[in-house]
């Protein structure tokens, strides 16, 4: 009876789901097609000297017969004949050329943003390898599956709700053609100023948001969101119930992450601190040390507190036992994959390679590379000098810490400052890991809280310290004219804006995540049973071992003779 009732409920809901989706499909019915080119609607052009020159150039361009012979040197491919003319009888005119130039700029930026987004998506593989490698073999399948399924949960949640909350009011990005349909920011007026709270357009990418530019920004922002979600799976590995993980990830992808993302990047109140109260250029987080990593890190801390430490992690006197991961090679290869993906994360955050100061992408890429390098150095030297061994897992965490820390300032700092930021991050991650484990008694199998949380906050702060005022992305940032400049270069107000961002991450994001997951603890339960945990989560939770043919063979005793 119960089963029939449950099945009926499910069938009803699936029907409702189909109805809801069909509504969105109806809303996506394209508007009447626009003219092929804007110039087509223009009045008949007057023939100017420039038009005559264009006609002359068209006459001199290589003919089809020349092109048929091949172009090994690449000197005759791509000429005026490749510019589409609005009126074929009149030939190519100046407006045609201008339109083509505009479209080329947007095309370059679309391709740049999409390709860098693809790189960020590939980081999921790196996260999966790092997290699973640092866990015991009995939990390998479960940890890999969390990293796999978080992509699906996050993407779905972001499509139905998250994107609308985060970017629903983010119109005005000229790199991607204006994004002019994203105009639904809900705001409130406080002390005579208007503050953005959350976006309201873009549910299901339907209606007017069925737009080429919106699709590009959706893909790029979605993979960033997914990076934040996957941070939590590492901190709670080896004891988190798969069901609770899935529900928690959906909620984080739909609400927690998009809310802070809106405040920082989607015309929300943090980005308005400059225009409203004169604090620098508003809260600045170029690629997401705060929005992505600290949000993930703060949530990881909240959830891992609730889930509790693994059995055997702490002794009765409070001292901790190291629980060694099963595959250090996966960890280090995963770190390299992440470092590779970071070239999408940071340089891609210009959202374009053409115009508006976007040629700074080279500087951003080098800053990213150097911070990763000094982060690794910091961690290795710290561990080697203080603990006696250049610990492999902490070396990987040092690399990631440097990359996390440079993510926010990468668009605003010099190569030297990037090195300093990375070096501090490399040491900070070691200190923070010890603090979280030994002082707070929070069990974080992969060091995610320290890598992403602590160093995410450090990255946000470092913008307020090290931004050197040389970047120029279209002459303004967050609507305030000028370049982002930190405390060491003369602007204390930028430092204040960054501190407000940090306080919001710690005070709001952490608390919200904590309350949501405490509610999930009540309704679903966060942790697997003792039997499941001791046996390993692979069989009870996933139904199969990660390595079914793995045979444990004890090492022979070393006699010393």
């Amino acid at each position, binding site marked *: 009876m119960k089963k029939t009732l449950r099945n009926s*409920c*499910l069938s009803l*809901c*699936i029907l*409702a789901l189909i*109805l*809801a*989706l069909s509504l969105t499909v109806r809303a996506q019915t394209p508007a009447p097609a626009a003219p092929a080119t804007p110039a087509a609607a223009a009045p008949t052009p007057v023939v100017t000297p420039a038009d005559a020159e264009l006609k002359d150039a068209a006459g001199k361009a290589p003919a089809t017969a020349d092109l048929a012979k091949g172009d090994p040197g690449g000197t005759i491919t791509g000429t005026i004949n490749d510019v589409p003319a609005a009126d074929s009888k009149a030939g190519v005119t100046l407006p045609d050329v201008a339109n083509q130039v505009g479209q080329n700029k947007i095309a370059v930026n679309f391709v740049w943003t999409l390709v860098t987004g693809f790189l960020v998506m590939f980081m999921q593989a790196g996260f999966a390898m790092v997290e699973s490698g640092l866990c015991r073999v009995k939990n390998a399948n479960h940890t890999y599956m969390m990293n796999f399924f978080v992509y699906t949960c996050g993407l779905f949640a972001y499509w*139905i*709700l998250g994107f*609308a909350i985060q970017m629903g009011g983010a119109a005005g990005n000229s790199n991607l053609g204006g994004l002019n349909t994203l105009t639904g920011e809900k705001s409130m007026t*406080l002390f005579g100023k208007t503050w953005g709270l959350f976006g309201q357009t873009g*549910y*299901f990418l*339907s209606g007017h948001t069925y737009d080429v530019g919106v699709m590009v920004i959706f893909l790029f922002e979605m993979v960033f969101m997914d990076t934040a979600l996957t941070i939590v799976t590492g901190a709670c590995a080896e004891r988190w119930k798969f*069901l609770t993980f*899935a*529900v928690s990830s*959906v909620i984080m992808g*739909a609400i927690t992450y998009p809310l802070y993302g809106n405040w920082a990047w989607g015309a929300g109140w943090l980005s308005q*601190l400059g225009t409203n109260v004169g*604090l620098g250029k508003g809260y600045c987080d170029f690629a997401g040390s705060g929005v992505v990593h600290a949000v993930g890190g703060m949530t990881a801390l909240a959830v891992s*507190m*609730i889930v*509790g*430490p693994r*059995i*055997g*992690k*702490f*002794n*009765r006197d409070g001292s901790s*036992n*190291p629980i*060694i991961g099963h595959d250090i090679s996966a960890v280090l290869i995963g770190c390299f994959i992440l470092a590779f993906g970071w070239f999408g994360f940071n340089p891609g955050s210009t959202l374009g390679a053409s115009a508006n100061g976007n040629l700074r992408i080279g500087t951003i890429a080098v800053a990213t590379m150097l911070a990763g390098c000094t982060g690794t150095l910091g961690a290795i030297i710290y561990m080697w000098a203080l603990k006696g*061994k250049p610990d492999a897992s902490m070396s990987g965490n040092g690399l990631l810490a440097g990359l996390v820390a440079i993510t926010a300032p990468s668009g605003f700092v010099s190569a030297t400052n990037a090195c300093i930021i990375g070096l501090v991050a490399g040491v900070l991650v070691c200190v923070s890991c010890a603090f979280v484990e030994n002082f707070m*008694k929070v069990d974080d199998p992969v060091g995610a809280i320290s890598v992403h949380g602590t160093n995410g906050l450090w990255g946000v702060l470092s913008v307020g310290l090290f931004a050197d005022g040389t970047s120029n992305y279209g002459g303004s940032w967050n609507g305030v004219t000028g370049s982002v400049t930190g405390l060491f270069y003369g602007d*204390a107000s930028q*430092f*204040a804006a960054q*501190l*407000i961002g*940090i*306080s*919001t991450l*710690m*005070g*709001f994001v952490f*608390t919200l995540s*904590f309350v949501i997951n405490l509610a999930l603890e009540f*309704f*679903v*339960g966060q942790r*697997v*049973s*003792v*039997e499941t945990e001791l046996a390993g989560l692979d*069989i*009870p939770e996933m139904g199969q071992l990660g390595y079914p043919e793995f045979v444990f063979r004890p*090492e022979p005793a070393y006699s010393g003779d």
Partner: protein
Amino acid sequence: MAANKQQGSYFGLFLAGATVLCAGFAYFGGGTGKALLALGAIALIGSLLGFLGIKPLEGKTAMNPGPEGMKLVGAAVCALGWILTLSGIHITASTGGRIVFALLGIGVTAVGMIFILPAAFNKNAIWKGDSGATERARTAAAAKTTMEHSR
């Protein structure tokens, strides 16, 4: 309780409810939108009740009940720090004053996050008792062996 069919069904219901609810938000202006919103909310509540119903099947976890009030106090102190920072934006117009308020806010939040909440969760922590002693011993032995091999 390991993963099972009931969990899968209720998770499906949760996702379907969330989707229908969001469709309701998207078309809230019309009658259909409001109906979808209500239907989605019902499905979501149904899934939560379903989760609650099967929760006891999980069996004993390696956690003891802690002081719930202290956990909520910790969360409230964290939020209070943020509110203090926000207040500073409007209380003073000077950059220095706002920096001081922000630092105070971060400090208050840190007290909640680093001192109150861990104390609440660790008060009755299972590792303080005898439970899990076998696994603890096994983990310690495995770690010792690994360290010895690496020397």
